[in-house]
């Protein structure tokens, strides 16, 4: 259980990181917080001869308010995100995930960028960031591009990132009025746990109190944080109430593609998805109405 012999490169800039990655590809791995990567290297699930650390790249650090939203640098730790005053005031839904993920020791080291770019199905932030209309800021030597998180993930541990591209930040647009998001997650244990199923919901209410728009995204029960189109169809135009949420939750359950593993069978996970979807929708609705922080 040792990290195999590696060479560590401290990139000082994005350009240098990209150059090192391309030079040592496919035997190189990008190192951010390392809470997953080091475990994978120790266990032999992944191998690498070169680790390219980006910790010194200032551009990747920090949470900044922009005119139209929040830029969360890829190296922001989960704790930094959880405690940031702007997050606490205006993006409180994020804390549904950040307060529950793993354990404090991990949250103090693990990064938002890592949680997103690893594209592990049970990651907590991707479904939530997706319903909050988050976007990935992607950098390469040929320039920057932005990809909505809804189309960022393509498979288990696979994203739209091309060779030479780096995730630099996650961008969250300012949450509009009468919009609420929430994340409900089920785990077998209360502390330091992995999600068995997680559902994120976002609800945009109209002035009449009906649902103008809605998003439901699944975590841990599909290869990618899957947006449930059927749930949106059920919700839009409706007066929010438990019955409608239950219908949408059933749609979420039908859309889930869970696997059977040590944490639960597919059948159980599906049932849990329905419950989590109802709870996430209810919370999101409460936030949209301003009755829940």
């Amino acid at each position, binding site marked *: 259980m*040792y990290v195999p012999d590696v060479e560590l490169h401290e990139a000082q800039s994005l350009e240098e990181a990209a150059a090192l990655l391309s030079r040592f590809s496919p035997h190189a791995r990008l190192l951010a917080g390392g809470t997953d990567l080091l475990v994978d290297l120790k266990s032999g699930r992944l191998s690498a001869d070169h680790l390219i650390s980006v910790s010194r790249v200032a551009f990747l650090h920090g949470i900044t308010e922009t005119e139209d939203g929040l830029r969360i640098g890829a190296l922001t730790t989960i*704790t930094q995100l959880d405690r940031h005053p702007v997050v606490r005031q205006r993006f409180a839904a994020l804390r549904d995930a950040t307060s529950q993920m793993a*354990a404090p*020791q991990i949250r103090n080291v693990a990064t938002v960028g890592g949680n997103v770019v690893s594209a592990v199905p049970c990651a907590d932030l991707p479904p939530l960031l997706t319903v909050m209309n988050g976007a990935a800021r992607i950098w390469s030597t040929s320039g920057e591009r932005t990809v909505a998180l809804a189309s960022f993930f393509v498979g288990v541990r696979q994203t739209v990132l091309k060779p030479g591209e780096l995730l630099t930040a996650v961008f969250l647009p300012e949450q509009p009025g009468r919009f609420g998001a929430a994340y409900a997650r089920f785990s077998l244990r209360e502390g330091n746990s992995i999600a068995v199923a997680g559902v994120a919901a976002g609800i945009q209410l109209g002035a009449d109190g009906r649902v103008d728009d809605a998003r439901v995204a699944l975590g841990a029960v599909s290869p990618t944080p899957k947006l449930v189109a059927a749930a949106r169809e059920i919700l839009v135009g409706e007066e929010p109430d438990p019955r409608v949420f239950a219908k949408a939750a059933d749609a979420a359950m039908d859309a889930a593609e869970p696997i059977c593993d040590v944490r639960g069978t597919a059948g159980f996970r599906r049932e849990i998805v329905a419950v989590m979807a109802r709870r996430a929708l209810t919370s999101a609705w409460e936030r949209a109405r301003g009755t829940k922080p």
Partner: protein
Amino acid sequence: MIVSRNLLINGQTYPVAVDPSDTLLDVVRDRIGLTGTKKGCNVGDCGACTVIVDGQAMNACLLLAVQMEGKAITTIEGLAKDGALTPVQKAFVHEGGTQCGFCTPGMLMSATALLEENRDPTIHEIKNALSGNLCRCTGYAGILRAVSRCENYRGDGTCTKKADSDHNDSGKGKVGLTNAGPWTSVGVSIPRVDAVDKVTGRIQYTADISLSNMVYGKILGSPIAHGRVKRMDTSKAEALKGVLWVLTSRDVTDTQYGVSPARYDEHIFARDKVRHVGDEVAAVAAIDEKTAEKAVSLIEVEYEELPVLLDPFEAVADGAPLIHERYKRNINTHVDQVFGDVEGGFARAHYVREETFTGNSIYQCPLEPHATLATWDSDGTLVLYTSTQVPHYVQYMMAHILHMPLGKIRVIRPAVGGGFGGKAETTPLDICAAIFSRKLGRPVKMIYSREEMFHHGRGRHKQHMKFKLGVDREGKITAFKSEIYLDGGAYSSFGVATAYYAGSVIPTLYDIPAYKYDGYRVMTNKPACGAMRGHGVPQPRFAFECLLNMIADDLGIDPVEIRLRNAIHPDTKTINEMDVGSCEFRATLEAAAAKSNWPQKYGKLPKGKGIGIASGGFVSGAGYCIYRGQVQLSHEKPREPFVKKSIFPHANAIVKISEDGMAAILLIGAAEIGQGSDTVLTQMCAESLGIPVSRMRIRSEDSDISPLDLGSYSSRVTLMAGHAVSRAGVAVVDKMKPYAADLLGCAETQVVAGNARMYVQGDESKSIPWEEVARKYFNANGPLVGTGCYKPPDGLGGDYKGATVGTSPAYSFGTAICEVSVDLETGKVKLDRFTDYHDCGTPINPMAVHGQVEGAVAMGASEALLEDVVFDEKGRIVNPNLHGYLIMTIKDAPEIFSGLVDSYEPRGPFGAKEIGEGSTLPVLGAVAHAIAHATGVWIKDLPITPEKILQALRQKEQVTEPVPAR
């Protein structure tokens, strides 16, 4: 490529040469020598390696040392300044925040990071901050108390005293009335004698010890569960730079070893075939552990795969392949016991219910991984540092394996980070390290990884139980019949005893007039199962208590009442001839029911809320030694016929008084594994010497220093070693009496020792300092030494086959009441509260007793709800780690009230008996009952997962749904 870094640790700069792949954990421990930071899992699951980096708690195992320059790192060694403990360290000492101590440094670092930011955290904030630190001993109760009350320990005058919450009841203190009391050292909640060393990280576990010129070893385990080794090529491993020796079955004897002499069935390395994933195939010694690990992966082995048996019912089926030729139908042990008229008992029963229950595969998960360090003295003595509960049995077995006298083997047991039965055997690490060290002439250290621990196994047997219970109109038991299949794994281990225990400790609680037990321990291609806390009994006890509760409900009798009607009385010989002495079982039932407001709650709570009850009890030490005959190399002894008495004393102690009379050194081989034996033995010895604990030291770790004790298993230490140390103390006082009498001018028989003085009985004004008498003795005679020993009473148990298992000088009793909330939509169970009352005789140290109960509750509840070692169809463990195999965190643990009823055991020292294992026994059944009460469905197979609860609720809905009309 090695680079140099300046690491700022505990305010001091350490220039170190590091390899980019080195973690901060390895550098801090191995390069800088700060071993207080522990390696428990190496992948961020357990938190034992927590350090503070720039104010934040982090896992040192997940940080690369090369990246740590310029950061302020604090380890456990950096907390106490100039030897003065921080408030939170003091609180851990005084509130029972540490037991085995292995999680303590990490726990303290997380707590310190929290407290530096928030001096007055809420319980919720504390739980959140400590949720990444696993503890297997304390049930987190003492830890939570310590952190929440740490303000009380601030020495700067800013103390805001926090009120004690209602968390325990240590009885009315009637203890002592029947003896010479009042006592001053016994019955007192003093902090553990090793607590300060544990909260400062100073105490050393085996893996923390390094000897000059030391090298490392690693074992290659089989990747398949059943097969023959066809070919092995070690040349690539041998060619790796840094490899010193590759050891295979060619290099070792074919001596078989194990636990029960009649069933030694393990080889050092697989001879004919491998029988489970992880079965030892070869081993490598190398200059460092990383090289050894790499070399092991370079050994090429070709296997011929054989059919894999994972289910005991398949394994006993006709035509199933045999895992060992010697165990026909793969049955390793068959128990067939009948007591009384069973059929008659069922015939006269008013009501009979039969149910099937299934247990789970539980692994002890001590936080400290097994470790061994072997070295040989120039005179040919093997010195073995090992993380063990049973130093003597390791000595006995190593003598057998290495074919050398026991006297040439010195076993040193450094601090042990928890055992729970999983460290009760000689391990392949002990054997390989000794063989490597002899050949290489260098000390050899070997440590299991967390995954290797799971493959070594020795956890709780999964039991398949068919129970039938008959009662009369009043609910009095008329007959009981049990049939149990124990999934044994690939080797015998302790399993013979397990199979007998699964039957023998059932009738020690209730009056059972007729009893039949059929037990089958079956071999399967899994790691061997062994003895775990409550040895063989927790799962049958769970099943029995559930069945009794079902019957109580069926008959409309309150579950407390049905227990009171059946509870045995003191001084009872049970149907299977166990001698029960003191018994305050009824008092535990009544106290637990009253404290929990049972009558107001049972059957009266809203849906989703439940309350449940179960009872349990255990032996206070096994009546007989594991091997027969005297202490001697087993093959030199004649085949020993069984006699119903102990050949040699099971516990032995020496007390040596310093020449100035100011210190007493207690020498005893009893194994401190976190349960607190060093502390309670010191207390008992101090009491009998008449001096305070502060004048005593205990040396229990070295077989060269301390006489034989059989070790920490079967909850034997308080009673057996307690007698030995008290008698040794009395022997010292007896030697001093003539000198005291002379100085006091009274008769020898009038001399009494107490409060560090010797005085004339009845006239305390006539006294002299204790040490003055000790000096007079030394002046005249030389060393002042006393010895004491303990043999269990002769003639324990009946004359039937297996009658020895379950015999004991005394039995404990206890009752647990559990309250839960169940989320009926997800099946998730939240444990709200446990109310426990136990009869442990006199509590020698009430705080330590409550600590055992709290730990047992959390462990038992964790087993009941979360834990299961899962195998795939090829016999590979799916979850050999602490993120797949889940044990409770501080956020999951219930609030616990631990109470003790007044009791005095005449066969125990100062009236004491056991607590550590008995307190586990009621827990599983109480959880299951509370869930059944909350949901209306009984889950009869463990663990009780949300998925099983949901499934049962669905089935019930379907059954009760009215059939639609056509």
